[in-house]
């Protein structure tokens, strides 16, 4: 599966948010979209899934323009996990079953049921499948959202800051789940994420965004401190621990401890 973003721009009223983005992603694995707040990560993800219509440019999946596909056809190719899921009193199973909407005709088939049950087991949600979404914690809700996207069985999955509101345990669980699913099912996963060290640990490729442009693309082994400094305007120190880059802002290292009077 190949995702090509070609000369993509997006404007909201008179403000241009994305500027002529050109990037190709190929094959399974996790790609992290990195950049400061307001750099256009969420907008890019929404444009890829045509939740927002680009002002110009195109997104191609295996050479086919997403603009030429119906909404349902596109939903069979790309699944999307928004930053926040709107709260509903729906049951967990029904929420996951919604992932089958792009595949449904009139009735839920046995295949749809089996798919959802497998995913519930895989994501550890089976014990709470009849619980209302209201009763779940933030981490569990995020899992439901990911499980719903998995039920779409799309070869490309987009996630907008899936770990933003999660504690350390849930962050790790969520990213481990995505890594294993990307490997096993050959899914291309693109994640917008803020935590650089978590991203370096789990993703293989990185797209660095700043002011609506992709200014660097890199594999994990080629990440440099210059790339990060250019994107975030913060001096950083990069250490390699077990072939994984670990970034520390230099400013904090040089700071003196506060004196309490």
């Amino acid at each position, binding site marked *: 599966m190949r995702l090509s973003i070609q000369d993509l721009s997006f404007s909201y009223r008179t403000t241009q948010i994305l500027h002529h983005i050109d990037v190709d992603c190929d094959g399974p694995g996790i790609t992290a979209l990195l950049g400061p707040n307001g750099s256009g990560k969420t907008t890019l993800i*929404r444009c890829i*899934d*045509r*939740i927002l219509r680009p002002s110009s440019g195109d997104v191609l999946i295996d050479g086919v323009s997403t603009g030429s596909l*119906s*909404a*349902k*056809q*596109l*939903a*069979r190719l*790309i*699944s*999307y*996990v*928004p930053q*926040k*899921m*709107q709260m*509903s*009193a*729906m*049951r967990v*199973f*029904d*929420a996951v079953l*919604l*992932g089958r*909407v*792009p595949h*449904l005709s009139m009735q839920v088939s046995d295949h749809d*049921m*089996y798919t959802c*049950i*497998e995913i*519930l*087991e895989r994501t550890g949600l*089976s014990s709470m*499948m*009849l619980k*209302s979404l*209201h*009763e779940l914690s933030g981490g569990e809700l995020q899992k439901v*959202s990911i499980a*719903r*996207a998995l039920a*779409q069985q799309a070869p490309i999955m987009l996630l907008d800051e899936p770990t933003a509101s999660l504690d350390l345990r849930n962050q790790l669980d969520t990213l481990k789940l995505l890594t294993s699913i990307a490997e096993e099912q050959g899914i291309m996963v693109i994640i917008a994420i803020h935590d650089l060290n978590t991203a370096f640990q789990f993703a293989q490729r990185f797209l660095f965004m700043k002011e609506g442009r992709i200014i660097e693309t890199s594999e994990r082994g080629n990440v440099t401190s210059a790339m990060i400094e250019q994107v975030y305007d913060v001096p950083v120190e990069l250490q390699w621990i077990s072939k994984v880059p670990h970034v520390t802002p230099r400013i904090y290292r040089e700071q003196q401890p506060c004196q309490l009077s």
Partner: protein
Amino acid sequence: MNSGNEHLQRSYGSYQRSKRIVLLAEVLVLLILVLVSLSLGAVRIPISATVRALFAPDTISFQYAAIIREIRLPQTLSALAAGAGLAAAGSVMQVILQNPLGSPYTLGVSHAAAFGAACSVMFLGTGVAVGGDSGIIELLYPYKTMLCALLFALMASALIVLLSHIKRTSSEVMILAGVTIGALCTAGTMFLQYFADDIQLAAMVFWTFGDVGRVNWQELTMITVVTVPSILYFHMHRWSYNALSMGDETARGLGVPTERLRLTGMGAASLLTSVIIACVGVIGFVGLVAPHIARKVVGEDQRFSLAASVLTGGILLLASDLAARLILAPRVLPVAILTAFLGAPVFILLLIRGYR
């Protein structure tokens, strides 16, 4: 499939069965209410005679058969169809607007219909005093009034849909547009009432008292012709409505065209409401309360809650109509008064107890 998976499927299957049992129970209650509604009134007719009047009218007295087939049957079926239609419209409006206050009444469609009826009384002279000294006020040309009410309700609905389309169809815009149009129409009705003479004023007020007793077979056919396809249309889009209840972004990610869904859903719900209100007058609360009760009973899943809303709406309006006929018999109260009397406490109870 392993045993764990089978267990999960069984659990989900029994969960769904419990919802179907609730729907079946509602159907039974509705059928019982239909029979009771046909047999009770100013003249009490035994249930056995009521059943025979429906299936073998030649075997009972002419009077009984006439009362049931000519008076009570259209009234009962109207209550059923109008209640089901208003509740279906309310259920879909609440999902589309993602707001529990969505209903034909709160969105100003009812107020627009009342304004249309008031205009017809004032400018087309459809409200007159008949019956000589008895002073009974009737609408002499009910179809003209009905048509005016329908026209105004449709115009209000179109305006809400148009305004929200211009502003990219957000639910907030739809609700605010509806509330504003409702306020405007209420002001218009009050303006006309201020300048109306006693008879015109009485006719205007009479029309706003929603009452299923005024519906004849032609109007019942009209309500049914709009209600049945609308409910089927809503049922066809149940999955899309479920996706919408998880938020616009999620729904679009699932391939649901949210803007088109909102516009067509609002259009269908408004047309349905407009036709019902034009035929039976303003009936508040059913469209608001029935979907809330339904969701309380079968949950948010639109696959079940739409059907439950339809049945609950029918039960609510039928029970209200029955109570309206019996409370001060032989005097018959307008059913709209009873729907508010019955609906408001139920709604407050739901609010106090909370629902998830």
